[in-house]
């Protein structure tokens, strides 16, 4: 029987009007990787905030025992002193400081307020070696990739003598190889240094890969704890616990009827980087999209998928060097975003908070924004018509909030994503470019989003589906393009494609680059 490192007993945490946690129990053994899963809003993050002292002792009921001791954390500092370190979903690094400075931020190598820089960077290098990061510790954080930044966060935790490491969605913004890298690091730290981890994640394959035990939360309560060590738990089993029902189909079926007509054709697209104008980010790309077809674009992060789609969408990104766009056989002049919207294209951004939604505006104002002309006469907005339109989309998309006056910033991630989709469906597009349409949303909301996409496509619209999740691409698309380093390097009908074939395609191409 392994030693209990952490035990949280009947934790209940209430916010005004909301019970975020209701009698939650969780036990973490020393030296294990413990996964906490649940839909968005199930209470995972709140639970971790109780543990790390973000919510001080007394603001919740129930008890936290760490190493056999009752904890009364008043703040983060108290829990860090015990070796509990939390890494939040949004990285907390300062982009204009160096790796070394970041690593000891708040934990400076100092003597009477004077920082010992020599020691700082030397120690930083040691910890970087542990996490397998080979960079100069003087490099500014903004100059390294997100994957490496995540490693710095972990190294930073190690520098605080971590015993219990809490990671809140550590891989949500990483591509598959970087994600694997982080998970392997956790496994290695567990083995070599005995670090216990709690990992929160939506990616079930990652959880079954690295977790020893899995605790499932639903609506603020513990559903069950599964042992993943003894037997491999199938993903469907976890999903069932999360949503409370059996989800046999991860991808809803649609009547796949791809029409003969070509809806969109892109020919010889070449785009240069916005700032580094000599860097080619999209290299002579040509692609076709039929009516009623979902076409996937798969590639690792940095392959140029977003850059390609944004530059098709009225040159919203980069400097276009060459390329033409044909819609229904007619060449389009797309010099600005309004041009693209007028041509009935839609681009659903991958970053809903950064470039998708106006968080401080209401659902109604967000939905009608791309086509204000639909709800206005001679620049005068018909507010009643607008409200009715928005209300229609709120209901048909199942946005869970009582009114369209609600500000988008008050919605959960899944609902925000539906508003983003609704906004672009409202614009009546023929062609939707969906850039990571299910990023950061839970399993249930994902399924609903897939259904929405299917409905649109069954109406004869077409979708360009960009995703970093291969399973999703394989599950949803009729045809798949593979992109690497700005080029299209392969095209597969969905029936022929498998994960292995696609990954191989990318590996072969990358090898070729190095060889040449």
């Amino acid at each position, binding site marked *: 029987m392994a030693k209990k490192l952490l035990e949280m007993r009947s934790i209940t945490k209430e*916010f005004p*009007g*909301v019970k*975020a946690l209701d009698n939650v129990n969780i036990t973490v053994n020393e030296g294990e990787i413990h996964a906490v899963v649940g839909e968005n*809003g199930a*209470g995972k*993050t*709140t639970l971790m*905030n109780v543990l790390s002292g*973000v919510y001080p002792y007394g603001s919740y009921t129930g008890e936290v025992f760490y190493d056999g001791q009752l904890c009364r954390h008043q*703040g*983060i500092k108290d829990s860090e002193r015990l070796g509990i370190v939390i890494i*939040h979903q*949004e990285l*907390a690094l300062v982009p204009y400081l160096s790796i070394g400075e970041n690593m000891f931020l708040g934990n400076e190598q100092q003597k009477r307020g004077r920082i010992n820089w020599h020691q700082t960077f030397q120690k930083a290098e040691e910890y970087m070696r542990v996490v397998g990061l080979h960079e100069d510790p003087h490099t500014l954080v903004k100059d390294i990739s997100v994957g490496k930044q995540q490693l710095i966060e972990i190294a930073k935790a190690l520098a605080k003598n971590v015993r219990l490491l809490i990671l809140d969605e550590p891989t949500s913004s990483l591509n598959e190889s970087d994600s694997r890298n982080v998970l392997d690091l956790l496994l290695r730290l567990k083995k070599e240094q005995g670090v216990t981890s709690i990992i929160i994640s939506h990616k079930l394959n990652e959880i079954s890969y690295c977790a020893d035990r899995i605790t499932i939360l639903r609506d603020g309560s513990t559903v069950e704890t599964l042992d993943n060590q003894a037997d491999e738990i199938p993903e469907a089993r976890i999903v069932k616990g999360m949503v409370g029902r059996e989800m046999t189909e991860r991808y809803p079926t649609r009547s796949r009827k791809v029409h003969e007509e070509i809806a969109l054709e892109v020919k010889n697209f070449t785009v240069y980087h916005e700032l580094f104008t000599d860097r080619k980010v999209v290299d002579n790309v040509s692609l076709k999209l039929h009516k009623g077809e979902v076409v996937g674009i798969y590639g690792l992060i940095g392959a140029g998928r977003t850059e390609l789609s944004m530059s098709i*969408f009225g040159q*919203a990104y980069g400097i276009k060097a060459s390329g033409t766009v044909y819609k229904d056989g007619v060449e389009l002049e797309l010099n*600005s*975003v*309004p041009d*693209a*919207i007028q041509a009935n294209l839609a*681009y659903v*951004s991958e970053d809903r908070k*950064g*470039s*998708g*939604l*106006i*968080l*401080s*505006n*209401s659902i109604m*104002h967000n939905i009608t*924004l*791309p086509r*204000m002309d639909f709800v*206005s006469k001679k*620049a*005068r*907005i018909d*507010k*009643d*018509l607008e*409200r*009715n339109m928005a*209300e229609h989309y709120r209901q048909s998309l199942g946005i*869970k*909030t*009582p*009114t369209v*006056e*609600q*500000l988008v*910033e*008050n*919605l*959960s991630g899944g*609902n925000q994503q539906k508003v983003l989709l609704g*906004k672009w469906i409202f614009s009546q597009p023929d062609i939707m470019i969906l850039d990571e349409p299910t990023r950061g949303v839970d399993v249930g909301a994902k399924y609903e989003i897939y259904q929405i996409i299917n409905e649109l496509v069954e109406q004869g619209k077409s979708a360009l589906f960009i995703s970093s999740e291969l399973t999703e691409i394989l599950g949803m698309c009729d045809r798949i393009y593979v992109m690497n380093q700005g080029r299209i390097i392969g095209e597969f009908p969905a029936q022929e494609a498998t994960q292995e074939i696609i990954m191989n395609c990318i590996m072969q191409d990358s090898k070729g680059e190095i060889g040449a």
Partner: protein
Amino acid sequence: MNSIRTTFRNNLKQYMMLIALVALVIVFQVLTKGVLLKPMNVSNLIFQNAYVVILAVGMLLCILTGGNIDLSVGSVVALIGACAGTFIITWGWNPHLSILLCLGIGILIGSWQGFWIAYMRIPAFIVTLSGMLVFRGLTLIVLNGLTLAPFPPAYLGYSTGYVPDPLASLELFGVRNTTSLLVGILIAVIYCVTQVMGYLGRKNKGYAVENVWMLIAKMAVISPAVVWLFYILASYRGIPMVLIIVGIVLLAYSYFTSHTVMGRHLYALGGNEKAARLSGVKTKRLLFLAYVNMAFLAAVAGIVFAARLNSASPQAGMSFEMDAIGSCFLGGASAYGGVGTVGGTLIGALFMGVLNNGMSIMGISSNVQQVVKGLVLLAAVAFDAISKNKLPFNLPRFGKKALEGQHSAEM
């Protein structure tokens, strides 16, 4: 019902400020032993604050674009006054054409600043700081450091006079200026009729409508308030001309921000520039126009203010930008942009105005007044920040985020 509650919550700050304004008026009414709301003083309040309201409305549009402010408005007010003085007093040009010319100069100034801010991407703070120095300097050059006075009546009539009273002989309800009273009643009636028409229209088309009692309550508060204001004005010398200018500005811009596509785009731009651009909003042009508009309104304020002083002075408009910015933030505008209303800004400006006027009547020194105004501004914004968070002060930032996340999950 839900939607009304949500709207109410979204505009909580504004309602709070309105209540605070009413409370402030009552307090000063008591402290000044009834002088504050004497007809003459109300008339004075309008003359004193007209230019602040005009500037604050322009400033609101700039702040909406993303928390950008315009530091140059005080200098533009002075420069426009100087131009008007030179054209009309020194060169003896036609006052009406001179006013048009001055408005044109305002638009030119705005285009200059807007160009650097919107198309050259230089921070508004820096461009308008430069403008503040440049236009103040130009004022001194134009006026050669001297004050020009007086203006001819044709110029002053636009903003310092009162609306003529053809019905003066009637003496209805014992007021001196019957026309004003009738205008007030007319406005109240028009207001009620449009409200009822809108209500019925929506109902007929099958749209969601507010509670009938809400509608009646709204009319029962606003119409008497309007009639009462005009009654007070009627008891003195009638409707100040400048009230018409301010009224037009308020109506036009409140319509613009709430009912037009471009107004909506302004909120989108300030709320999230990238998202607005990807939704087809012409962000650069909008930012440019916000600054053109600001300088245009600063020119209007400059003309009004020069008329009130009845002179073109090189010192005119000192620190007006601060009054305008303060009014916006008091009225609930967000320092990050995308949030704020014309109505709120009016409330903010009136709050500042009543505070100034009340303390002056009480004979509090202007030094102390400044301290009070500064603290009030901080208090209002701090109250907003704290009431939004509803959290103890020592909580780290991500704690707040996580909490919001939990809230939202339940929505």
